[in-house]
């Protein structure tokens, strides 16, 4: 059974590219375009890994991450934060609130795929 990945980003073109990339690697993919939708999709789609943008309307990636980490049922959920803001403080913040990895935009598709597979134990 293939692993499930939820893509959360408010930029449609980034969603398009990520969706295409992950599907091509054989993952089952769902999409959310803001924080609230992300939390709903997590409950409904039950993903193994979250590609989570930080700067989003309604709820930021940080807030989504915090909410998920507060839920003990989701302890195994892997979270990869994606951000266009490359400042060290933000990387540190993301990791501190429980993200498993932090990737800066623009990213290398190859490296992202490697990292995701690695995290899901598929390498």
């Amino acid at each position, binding site marked *: 059974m293939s692993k499930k990945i939820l893509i959360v980003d*408010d*930029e449609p*073109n*980034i969603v398009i590219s990520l969706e295409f990339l992950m599907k091509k690697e054989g993952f089952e993919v769902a999409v959310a*375009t803001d924080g609230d939708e992300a939390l709903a999709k997590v409950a409904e789609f039950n993903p193994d890994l979250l590609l989570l943008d930080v700067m989003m309307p309604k709820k930021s990636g940080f807030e989504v991450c915090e909410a998920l980490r507060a839920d003990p049922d989701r302890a195994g959920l892997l979270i990869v934060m994606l951000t*266009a*803001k*490359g400042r060290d403080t933000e990387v540190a913040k993301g990791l501190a609130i429980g993200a498993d990895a932090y990737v800066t*935009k623009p990213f290398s598709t190859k490296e992202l795929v490697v990292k995701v597979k690695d995290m899901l134990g598929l390498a």
Partner: protein
Amino acid sequence: MLSGWFIVLLSATYIGVLFAVARFGDARADAGRSIISANVYALSLAVYCTSWTFFGSVGRATSGGLSFLTIYLGPTLMLLCVGVIVKMIRIAKAQRITSIADFIASRYGKSQLLAGLVTVIAVIGIVPYIALQLKAVAASLDVLFDQPGHAIHLWGIDSTLLVAAVLALFTILFGTRHLDATERHEGMVAAVAFESVVKLVAFIAVGVFVTYGMFDGFSDLFRRAAAHPELAGLLELDASRAGTWAAMILLSALAIVFLPRQFQVMVVENVDESHLKRAVWLFPLYLLLINIFVLPVALGGLMHFSGQGANPDTFVLTLPLSQGAESLALFVFIGGLSAATGMVIVETIALSTMICNDLVMPALLRSTWLKMEKRGDLSGLLIGIRRVAIVLILLLGYVYFKAAGEAYALVGIGLISFAAVAQFAPALFGGMYWKQATRAGALAGLLAGFSVWLYTLLLPSFARSGWIGNGFVEHGLFGIEWLRAQALFGLTGLDEISHCLWWSMLANIGAYVVVSLSTVPDALEAGQAERFVDVFRHAQRAPDARLWRGNASLKELVDLLERFLGPARARQQLAAYARSRGQRDWHGLPPDAEFVHFAEGELAGAIGSASARAMVSSVTREEDLGLEEVLDILDEATQVRAYSRELEAKQQALEVATGELREANERLRELDRMKDDFISTVTHELRTPLTSIRALSEMLHEDPKLELEERRRFLGIIVSETERLTRLINQILDMAKLESGRAEWTTADVDVSEVVRESMNALEQLFHEKGVHLDSDLADRLPPVQADRDRLTQVVVNLLSNAVKFVPGGGKGRVRVGVSADEKAVRVTVADNGPGLTAEECGVIFEKFRQGGNTMTDKPQGTGLGLPISRQIVEYFGGKLWVESAPGAGATFIFTVPLPGPEA
């Protein structure tokens, strides 16, 4: 029916009332509740208006027209120099000054010689003035008694001598009633103020009587006067006499301060500096009131007694009497009596104090007689000396009146006195503001000025009276033409007063300045110079006391005080002083420098500063402080003050600078934070499109077998994201240019409606594609605005594309554009029926990278810089850009561009 004894009785009653007022004033002063208010002080200054004003102004107006006013303009101008007078009062209080002679002597090292010289000048200068008062009272009595039925024999005595005797007695009872001889006399001041009211009311009463009783008001009187050709000239200002006017104004300005009686009431008797503020307007008002009726009475008298040769100086009496208004005449007589007695009392008290302290005391202190009597109480002797001096002064005045009284009109005599006391001006003003002025300079100046006054004014007046030959007036001294007394060095064309004033002031100031500059002051002088000139800085006693060094015995100093103040008053002052130093009993006081200073101050109040200095130094063993040492001490004090002021100033400057730095730092930090945020935001905005571009290109690059449709789709996204990047970079650069002020502007006349129309055309396609309805309401023939056409287009396009972005599509969206104008500005509105904005959003959308609403679908279209740039542009043109909106009610963006002003 009037009779001689009735007049005497009336006068006695009036004088009794004056006594009551004076007693009341003294009693209140003793009880510590002074009745000297600001009003009383101002009224007491009106002792300036003597019988010379009361009778003489009318006389002067009959010959000189309006020129009598100069005597009242001068004082008004002088009082405007409040700062000078306040400084004088402050010095006088600090130094316990008793008279003008004391003031000048004290400034120049407490010099007995200088005090004596000033006293002599004052006595010689003022005696004619006192003679004037005697003449006025005698003349008014003559007028009253000359009336049929009023003949009363004055017991065979010359009525003027009788008047002098009464005045002497009166003054003795008044001013030297107290045994404690201090410098202030509150009862006297109260009585003088009372007299000022009486004489004012009396003069106004006769003025009203003449103007409205004998004539039909001012206009009638002046009209009838103008009909007499010889009177008409009195009503005109005579330009050829401008020099005389200036001299008169200057003289009277100096007289209001330097006449001994004026110095007495204005400076010595002042109880509160703030009273001066009232006097500054109240006293000139008084002068105005007392002068209103001068000309009407003069003209009335001249017309009424035309051809009868009546004496104009007594018009105020003869006019009412000619109409049978006897009680008014009596009232006027009392008014004149007030004017004369007020002057005589204050003047003789001031002069007797000067004579006692500055002429008699120094002589007595040198004589062996006083030393033998060392144990006795001398306060009685002081009073005695003053009483004798009063009698002598009035006697001298009488003698002068008998000798020279008929030589001049009343006003002439007064001006001789004015010119004499004007000689004090350089030494006194100079002493207050010029530290380098020395005793020798003051002596030289006074002597020079006094000599010139004597030669050019007083002696010629003697010559006119036939006392001495008038050869020096007619042909010059020893027949030398340029020494003619009233045309010195060939200076002709001036009246005698101006002539005297010019030469005496030239000699006085010249000698004062030259000698001062070429002599060196001694230690005492230098110390006094410092205290006078810098009186406002020497608020505390400390530096005064530090300028004395030596050994003193408490007992000897106390003895000294008891001898001159009387035991009772001495003990009272000692007790008060002990309390001020925190001691219960003065017996325990240390005889230190401060005590010596206190004792000298108390003595100065009684016998003047010069004599006090002499007495104190006679009972103490003083070390001589050299000039160098005194200057060092003063300098030190000044330097310490200067340093501390400098430090204070520097500290303040530092505090200000620190505050400014903190503020600047705060601003910088804020700017830094903003810059950080900006870069972070820009980074985000740049990375977002780059992310899609990179991801998609990598996938295209790695997977050549990608389906064509996918390929085309990806490439399309890449192209549009690249466009977005370009747009973004352009706008950031645009924004940076606008913000840094480096943007280029081409300003020209722009028709706003046309710009809007063009912008709408340009975007027509976009609106059409989205199915948004665009309509407009553009006013025609608007005045052009001064703006950059392309920039304005940029704003309109930005607003339109924002609107189309937010309204619903599919035929439901509506955007309406309007252009209108008022007198001040052209106004453009872009209204949409989109989702609207919250109040908070209305503000933030004009910040950089802050977009309104959820722009999910159209996000690539906006950079978040459009509105901030538009606002910058509009504000550059001097206009405003804002939005009016509410959630669900659409949004209306409005901007204005001001029309050029009418002057442009």
